[in-house]
C-alpha cells in the first residue's frame, strides 16, 4: 500500500474498436465502435480500483481487454512490468494463471452441464496445479473459503441461488491463486442482503491473499465500499480519476457530479432536502459519439470550446484527474450549489 511500488497492472492508452457487421459479400462492416478509446489505469498490488459508468460506456470491455479477452486495437497492458502483448502463447497461458475474472450474471457464467466439482477443479486441471489425487481436497478447501458446504461438490449450478452461484464463480477465480481479479459487476444481479455478503467475501479474500482488484460497477455507492481509487467512464473514455475520498467529497467532472446526485440515498430526510442535477437526454450512441467532449450534449455548463476540442485527462489538483476544460475553475463549487 505504499505509493512507491510499481503498479501490478499498468494499462496505457488502451483502445478497443469494434467493427460493426455490415453488408457486402464477406460481411465486412465499415462503421467502427470505439468501445474503449484511450484508457489508462494503474493498479498497485493489494489495491482496488473502481471503474464506474452507465451501460455502454465500455467499462466491461475495458476489463476484458486487460485480460486479453477482447481484441485490443491499441495501447499496452503490463502485468508486473511485463507487456502482455509481447508474450508467447505459452507465456501468456502462464500469465493467465495470475489474472482472473468474476462475471455479473451468475446464471450465465457457469457451465450448466458441469458439477461444482468440475467447475472449480477445471483451473487446477488446466494449469496442472496440485497432483490429481490432491485436487479434490483443494476444491473442498476453495469451497470452504467462499462459504459453500462440501455437499455442493456433486451438484449442478441450477440447484443454487444467485448468491451461491456467485460464490462458485469466485471459487473458480481464486483456484489458480491469482494476483489480479477483474470483478465485472459481481453483485449487480443480486439482492441487497446478498450483495453485502458477496462484497464482504471479496474483501476478506483480498485481505487474506493480497489480491488486486479492478472493480467494475454502475453503482457508485457499491464502488465506494470497495475501492481505493475510482475511475469514471463515459463513452469509452475516463472522464475522472481520483481517490475514493476525493471523488465522493468533491467531484470535479460535471458527469461525475450528475452521477453522484442521481444516486438515491436511503434516507428520507436527506432526500427531501437534497437538490439534484438531473441530466437531460441519454447517453449518445457509441457508434457516432458527439465531437469534442463526448459529454457536451448533456452537460449543464458546456461552452463552445467543449463542442470541438477533446479535453485531456489532466491533474486538476493533487491526485485528482478530470477530463473537462472547466474543471478546477468554474466547477470549484460542489454540484449541489447550482
Amino acid at each position, binding site marked *: 500500500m505504499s505509493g512507491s511500488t510499481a503498479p501490478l497492472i499498468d494499462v496505457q492508452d488502451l483502445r478497443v474498436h469494434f467493427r460493426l457487421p455490415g453488408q457486402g459479400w464477406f460481411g465486412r462492416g465499415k462503421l467502427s465502435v470505439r468501445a474503449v478509446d484511450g484508457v489508462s489505469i494503474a493498479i498497485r498490488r493489494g489495491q482496488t480500483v473502481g471503474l464506474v459508468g452507465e451501460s455502454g460506456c465500455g467499462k466491461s470491455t475495458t476489463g476484458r481487454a486487460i485480460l486479453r479477452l477482447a481484441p485490443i486495437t491499441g495501447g499496452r497492458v503490463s502485468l508486473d512490468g511485463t507487456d502482455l502483448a509481447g508474450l508467447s502463447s505459452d507465456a501468456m497461458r502462464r500469465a493467465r494463471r495470475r489474472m482472473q475474472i468474476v462475471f455479473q450474471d451468475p446464471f450465465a457464467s457457469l457451465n450448466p452441464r458441469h458439477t461444482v466439482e468440475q467447475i472449480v477443479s477445471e483451473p487446477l486441471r488446466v494449469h496442472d496445479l496440485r497432483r490429481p489425487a490432491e485436487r479434490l481436497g483443494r476444491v473442498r478447501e476453495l469451497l470452504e473459503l467462499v462459504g459453500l458446504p462440501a455437499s455442493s461438490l456433486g451438484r449442478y449450478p441450477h440447484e443454487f441461488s444467485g448468491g451461491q452461484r456467485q460464490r462458485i464463480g469466485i471459487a473458480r477465480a481464486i483456484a489458480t491463486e491469482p494476483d489480479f481479479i477483474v470483478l465485472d459487476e459481481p453483485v449487480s444481479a443480486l439482492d441487497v442482503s446478498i450483495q*453485502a455478503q458477496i*462484497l464482504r467475501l471479496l474483501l476478506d479474500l483480498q*485481505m487474506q491473499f493480497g489480491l488486486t482488484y479492478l472493480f467494475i460497477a454502475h*453503482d*457508485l455507492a457499491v464502488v465506494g465500499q470497495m475501492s*481505493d481509487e475510482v475511475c469514471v467512464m463515459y463513452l469509452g473514455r475516463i472522464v475522472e480519476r481520483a481517490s475514493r475520498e476525493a471523488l465522493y467529497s468533491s467531484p470535479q467532472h460535471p458527469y461525475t457530479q450528475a452521477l453522484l446526485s442521481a444516486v438515491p440515498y*436511503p434516507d428520507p430526510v*436527506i432526500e427531501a432536502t437534497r437538490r*439534484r442535477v438531473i441530466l437531460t437526454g*441519454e447517453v449518445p450512441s457509441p457508434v457516432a459519439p458527439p465531437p469534442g467532449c463526448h459529454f457536451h450534449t448533456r452537460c449543464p455548463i458546456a461552452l463552445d470550446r467543449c463542442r470541438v476540442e477533446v479535453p485531456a485527462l489532466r491533474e486538476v489538483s493533487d491526485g485528482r484527474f478530470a477530463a473537462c476544460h472547466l474543471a478546477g475553475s468554474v466547477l470549484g463549487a460542489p454540484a449541489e450549489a447550482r
Partner: protein
Amino acid sequence: MTSLRDSAPTNSAGKDARGPASASGRSSFGTGETVLDVRDLRVVFETRRGRARAVDGVTFALRAGETLGLVGESGCGKTVTALSLLRSVPDPGRIDGGSITFDGLDLMRISEGQMARLRGSRLALIPQDPLTALNPVMTAGAHLTEVLGVHLGLTGAAAITRATDLMDRVGIPEPRKRLDSYPHQLSGGMRQRVMIALAIACNPHVLIADEPTTALDATVQAQILELLDELKRETGMALLLITHNLGIVAGHCDRVAVMYCGRVVETAPVGEIFAHPHHRYTAGLLACVPRLDRQEKGVFFTIPGTPPELTALPPGCAFASRCEAATDQCRLDRPDLQGTGGTGAHFMACWHPAGVGEATAARAASTRARG
C-alpha cells in the same frame, strides 16, 4: 383480529398520520380517500415441488394522491401482488383468498369483462421492462391510439391529438414525430416514457409501477422518477411503487410496506420506517444498503443466509433462520402485523422488534472487514 385491520378504516377516514419526514411537503398525501383496499390477499402457485405461497395474507390500503412503496427482495411476492391487483396472475398461480376493493368495487366479484375495462384505464400498470412490454411491430402512436380507442372511444384525429399531448406530457421531445417511432428506434428511457404515457392515457386513479427504473441507467432513472412524482402531483392519482431500491423509496414514497416471503413484515410512513425500523429484516436491509454518505472501505453489515423456499416455509416467522434475535417463539409461531404505538400508522410483524437504541447499536456493530 390483527390490529392493522381494525385501524385501517380509521386511517382511511382521513386521520392525518404523517411521519416526521413527510412534513417536508413533498406531496399532499393523507388527504385523499382510500382508492384501493387490499385485505388478506393470498396467491398460490402450484408447482411440481409443491404449493408455493407467493403472497400470503397481504393487507394494505392506498389513498388518493399518495405513493406507497412496496419493497422487498426478489421472490418476496411484490410483483405477484401487483399482478393480482389486476387479476392477471400468471399460470400456474391463482388468487386463493382475500379481498381487493378499488373505487368501491370488489375486484374479486366483478366479471372478467368489467375487469378488462378497468385494466389500463382506471387501474394502470407500468411494467419493469419497457422493451418486452411494447409490441415491436407497432409504433408508439399505434400503442397509444389503441388504448385511447378501446377505453375512451377516441379515433382518428382526436386520438392522434390526444396521443401527441400525452407524449408531450411525459417529456418526449418532438412528440408528433415520435408517434411514428417503433420501439427499437427509442432509447430505454424513451420507451419507459411511452409506457408511462400509455398508463396515464385514461387518467387512472391508481398507477402501479413495477420496478419502473430497474432496467435503466442511474441518470435516466432519476428523470423517470421525477416524471412520476410530477404526474402524481398534477393528477392526484395514487401510486403503488414496487421496488427493491430503498433509496428510491426514501426519495419518492409517502408510506412503505416491506415484504418478506409473501408477507408484509412492516409498514409505516417513510420517515418512521427509516428512522425507527422495528422489524429485524427492515433494520438489516437498511443497514445493508451501500450509502454514499457512509463511504468507508470495507465496512459492511450483512444479513446471513438466504430466504427459505416458498414451497417450504417454516411454521413461524420466515425470517427467523436469518435473524440474530430469533427465539423458539419466532420459529414456531408466526407473528401478525400489530401497531407499534407511536404515530399509530406504524405496524410490524415481529416478536422481538428492534428498539430505537438497538437499531443504532446493530448498525454500529456492523463488522469491520478491514482496518
